[in-house]
């Protein structure tokens, strides 16, 4: 393994280190529609281990959020999970009775959403919202729950927590609100924390602080973290492993440096070219990805990326056969492309 140029310690090879805390297998989520249903999560399999950070990358609408919303059994009407499992410590969340599932949500698996402005209820005090979460899982008196809420606010470095606990969301800044939401998410010490673009809505300086906080909590508790993002700079700095999603599928998956240094899917290549990140020299050209993301109700017969892919051109297998996620050249590195060899041949340093 080569040295990785990220501040984080790269962990050992995937598959070798302990059992997965959260393992998603063959997840399929559909929304009914006219004339055909929309498949927003299409046979997705992913896993995260304790202490590990998995980055899930992709454009808007690629199904990255829906995958985890589905795994937590939170798909909104009229959507439905058609197939698949979401194993949390070996127990399939999707087969649990509603009551059991509810007990695990928040307590064992928690989610921090994208927009801290809309994630907090505007008509309740911050403290009351955190207390509601605590008391949903633990039999604490109001006084004790309140103390716990203050402790949690201090834990996420909100200054003057004892006073802030009685504030309404509109009285806090965006960064403070996201901290409050993180406090809520870690209130019960979950095994897995899903952070859905936790910094997209925030200022750049605040972004770094929030991710710092998440890393700090992770280091302290050893929880697994899923970082849903489209910011490859964040991925480089915080992820151990990466899954790239496109059109509801995982198209490439592997260790951080494998994805960054030995990219084996043309969509990932296009992502690197379209988004500025730390490894991009300031003067290099950025090429936006041509075309539109696929409509989940009109997925093509072949590879969903083929219409926008520079490798596919008019290749028949790309247009006719949907590629499956299969081992690429390095161990634990998977790619769903018929022609990943072309990328290997192109030479990795070209990018």
């Amino acid at each position, binding site marked *: 393994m080569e040295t990785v140029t990220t501040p984080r310690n790269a962990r050992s090879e995937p598959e070798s280190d302990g059992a997965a805390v959260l393992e998603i297998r063959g997840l399929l989520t559909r929304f009914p529609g*006219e004339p055909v249903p929309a498949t*927003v999560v299409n046979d997705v399999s992913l896993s995260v281990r304790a202490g590990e950070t998995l980055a899930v990358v992709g454009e*808007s*609408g690629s199904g990255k959020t*829906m995958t985890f919303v589905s795994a937590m059994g*939170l798909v909104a009407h009229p959507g439905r999970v058609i197939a698949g499992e979401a194993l949390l410590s070996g127990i399939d969340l999707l087969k649990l009775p509603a009551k059991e599932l509810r007990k695990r949500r928040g307590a064992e698996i928690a989610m921090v*959403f994208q927009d801290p402005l809309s994630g907090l209820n505007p008509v309740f005090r911050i403290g009351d919202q955190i207390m509601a979460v605590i008391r949903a899982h633990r039999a604490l008196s109001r006084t004790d729950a309140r103390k716990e809420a203050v402790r949690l606010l201090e834990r996420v470095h909100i200054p003057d927590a004892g006073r802030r606990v009685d504030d309404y969301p509109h009285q806090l800044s965006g960064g403070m609100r996201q901290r409050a939401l993180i406090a809520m998410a870690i209130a019960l010490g979950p095994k897995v924390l899903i952070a859905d673009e936790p910094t997209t809505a925030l200022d750049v300086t605040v972004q770094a602080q929030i991710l710092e906080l998440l890393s700090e909590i992770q280091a302290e508790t050893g929880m697994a973290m899923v970082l849903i993002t489209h910011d490859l700079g964040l991925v480089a700095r915080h992820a151990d492993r990466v899954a790239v999603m496109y059109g509801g599928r995982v198209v490439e998956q592997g260790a951080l440096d494998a994805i960054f240094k030995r990219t084996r899917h043309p969509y990932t290549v296009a992502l690197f070219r379209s988004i500025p990140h730390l490894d991009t020299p300031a003067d290099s050209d950025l090429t936006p990805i041509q075309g539109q993301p696929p*409509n989940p*109700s009109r997925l093509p017969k072949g590879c969903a990326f083929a219409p926008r892919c520079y490798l596919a051109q008019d290749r028949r297998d790309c247009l006719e056969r949907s590629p499956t996620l299969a081992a690429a050249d390095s161990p634990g590195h998977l790619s769903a492309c018929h022609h990943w060899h072309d990328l290997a041949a192109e030479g990795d340093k070209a990018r």
Partner: protein
Amino acid sequence: MTDTSGQTSLDDLPPARRFAWLDRYVRHPGLMIGMVILLLLVTVAAAAPWIAPYSPLDTDLADTLAHPSAKHWLGTDQYGRDIVSRLIWGSRISLQVALAVVLISLTLGTLIGAVAGFAGGWVDRVIVVCNDILLAFPGFLLALALVAARGSSLESVITAVSIAFTPRVSAVMRSVVLTIKPRLFVEASRAIGMSSWRILWRHVVPNALPPVIVVATVSAATAILAEAGLSFLGLGVQPPTATWGNIISDGNAIITTNPLISFSAGLCIAVAVVALNLLGDGLRDTLDPQMRRQTGRMI
């Protein structure tokens, strides 16, 4: 973002067929049912002189309070007038009131709203205050006050309901103008020489039309109910003219023996109002999802 809302919009792609945009209207059952009922009602009202079996006013004292028969499908009232014929002619009054109210409140409302929105400043403030006050004024009371001041007539009813609904239209129109005004300046600076009429036609009308149409259908429904209420109280169009409210009022005297008379007239009113409400709900759902907020508070 489509993937966080938990719903995936299928409308992102350009339509595959030429009239595919019609699909969502045709597929909305409420909208279609409302449209069909309304068309039927308009046809019946327009063709009243030809399809009504009898005159709505001709009394036949030899054949009063007749039970339903082949001769009189819904029987006759205490003066021997044919109920079916009266109901058919009554539809004219109701639709006339609805149409007049829609035309008046739409014309005045869009004008006032556009002036308020475009002029801004004190003009806007004065109009908004007047609007709010009129909205706080119960519409039905306004109608009563009008009738008290100038007697009961079709015009009083129409004037009163129009006054009650004009501020609703103008409030919607004003908010539409305010939202598109910033974009208009951009457009105008880009294409100097674009006449104000073209701006109006290309930008204001298409944006304002959907919410205004929804408010209009609601006002038409309310107008029909208000007319019926005033007629029922004896303050609307005066008997013996056949209006649905008058028929209920006449039928009320004999409701224990001949409930069918009041029943059928009430049903007619309900069918017309249901049709307009279905139409309004359907248009609200299909025209533009964003406008739900703007018109959501209208009754």
